[in-house]
């Protein structure tokens, strides 16, 4: 039983929690750009946190299924339709064979997730299903999905349709928090201060590997070449060109540019989700503050998932009716003319 991609979008891939354990062999973990949104999508479908789903950048695409299933879209606001029914993100919905699911453009976010009950069952490679695009590992033949691709689905168990409580409102003007280092000593104090006192912006040069930023010059007093050492997602590399590069989920495992600071784990999804062109500030925090922020973010997501509520059983009681354009449907004269005798 499979799911068919009727029309794809440019950055549609299979992702799961990632593939840890292979960095010493040159392969970064990959996995979702916004792991919390993936976890929520899986929970809404009754899936394990380990299940694989689809990640899309910008807009979703169109899909059909061979078996009845439940699905959920998370990551941000966007138009979701099954046939003519307009549906909400952060809820699960049913999709029947013969119906077409369309997911439009994200508004105010960059990465969206579609989970399906049971999960996507492409083969595990090195212990995970995540697509690592740069190395062609995992997912469907290690690549972006294309029109016509068929994805195997894992068997699912019957389950209710669920709805997530509204998230804690995000504060878009909050700075992105960083820990200085590991090569902060390559930069003078005045340059380090610029990291916090000036605006940065996300350029269009961004993908699952890294994001290039616009911002002030950050010249390194020790030069911009180091003997290559290990990198991590969130590390802010400063090459000689001056444009800092924030490494993301699919980053290279080693690099030869000094890393002035590293975005804290709690704020990495927020950075990933910022629309291109967003201006923001960095703020330095201590390791203890970063750890507290991660506990807080993880706790908030745990609490949100623990309070998923069952949707009303009668489809005509709630979102179905609200989403139907009843007035337009009945009083559209052309529809009446077409439907009636000539």
């Amino acid at each position, binding site marked *: 039983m499979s799911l068919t991609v009727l029309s794809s979008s440019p950055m549609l891939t299979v992702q799961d929690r990632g593939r840890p*354990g*292979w960095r010493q062999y*040159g392969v970064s973990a990959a996995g979702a750009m916004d792991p919390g949104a993936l976890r929520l999508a899986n929970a809404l479908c009754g899936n394990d946190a380990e299940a694989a789903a689809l990640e899309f950048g910008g807009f979703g695409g169109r899909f059909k299924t061979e078996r009845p299933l439940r699905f959920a879209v998370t990551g941000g606001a966007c138009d979701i339709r099954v046939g003519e029914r307009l549906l909400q993100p952060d809820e699960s919905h049913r999709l029947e064979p013969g119906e077409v699911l369309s997911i439009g453009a994200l508004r105010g976010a960059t990465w969206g997730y579609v989970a399906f009950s049971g999960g996507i069952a492409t083969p595990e490679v090195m212990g995970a299903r995540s697509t690592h695009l740069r190395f062609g590992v995992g997912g469907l033949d290690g690549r972006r999905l294309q029109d016509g691709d068929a994805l195997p689905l894992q068997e699912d168990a019957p389950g209710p349709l669920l709805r997530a409580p509204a998230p804690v409102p995000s504060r878009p003007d909050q700075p992105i928090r960083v820990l200085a*280092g590991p090569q902060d000593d390559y930069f003078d104090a005045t340059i380090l201060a610029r990291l916090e006192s000036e605006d940065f912006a996300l350029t269009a040069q961004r993908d699952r590997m890294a994001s290039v930023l616009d911002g002030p010059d950050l010249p390194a007093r020790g030069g911009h070449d180091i003997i290559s050492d290990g*990198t*991590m997602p969130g590390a802010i590399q400063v090459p000689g060109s001056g444009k800092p590069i924030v490494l993301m989920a699919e980053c290279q495992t080693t690099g030869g540019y000094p890393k002035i600071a590293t975005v804290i784990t709690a704020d990495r999804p927020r950075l990933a989700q910022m629309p291109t062109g967003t201006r923001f500030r960095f703020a330095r925090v201590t*390791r203890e503050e970063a750890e507290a922020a991660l506990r807080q973010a993880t706790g908030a997501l745990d609490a949100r998932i623990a309070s998923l509520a069952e949707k009303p059983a009668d489809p005509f009681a709630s979102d179905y009716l609200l989403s139907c354009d009843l007035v337009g449907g009945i009083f559209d004269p052309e529809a009446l003319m077409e439907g009636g005798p000539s």
Partner: protein
Amino acid sequence: MTSTPSFADTARQGPAILPLGDSAVSVEFGRSIDPDLNEAVIALAAVLEEAPFEGFVEAVPTYRSLVVIYDPLTVPGREVEALLHDKLTGGDRPARPRRLWRIPVHYGGPAALDLEDLARENKVDVEELIALHSGAEYRVYMIGFAPGFAYLGGLPEALHTPRLPVPRQLIPAGAIGIGGQQASVNSVPGPSGWRFIGETPVRAYDPDRATPFLFAAGDALRFTPVSAQEAADLAARRDAGEVILTAAVLQ
């Protein structure tokens, strides 16, 4: 190789434990390329893998530092630092058996794009070049850049050759390369500015193999010249799913 080893200084001050975000630290043993520094990096990785602490995720050896990745929800960074400090000052480094790989190389064929040019540029004839390249023992300093791509130190100075200013678009897996002072076995097809003198049927990386990666940091490598026919026979056995290379364990 690029500067004098600073191991003595490092040993006196102890390695620096630098934060790499809130989920990793970089244990920096020095800031130069040096086999002793690299050995210290790999020894610490071995200690951690032998007896991982609660919350340990993985360790990534590089030339002169070890990235230690952990789950900060399980173990706070302050504790990781203290733990690593204990391991570093414990001084009880286990003797690590070293693996030696003998890589069959056909110095010729379509991947040997630069064999003749390199001989000319380095003022040796092709036979001498092969003898130099296959006469040395190499050290895997680290794996990076691509899956299973080993950065090899130990290239004889007579063969040091700058990389191309403009990388070539597609170099096959198995191509035997030289880049500056380093040597390589290309692990995946892709663009490269390195110079190439031959090819091996050995695949450093194969995701469908029981062990996807052959080499690890700290391994030793030697290249053994083989004929085009021998290389082709080995490639056929490899394609039939046979294991065509295993490492010798040195003590």
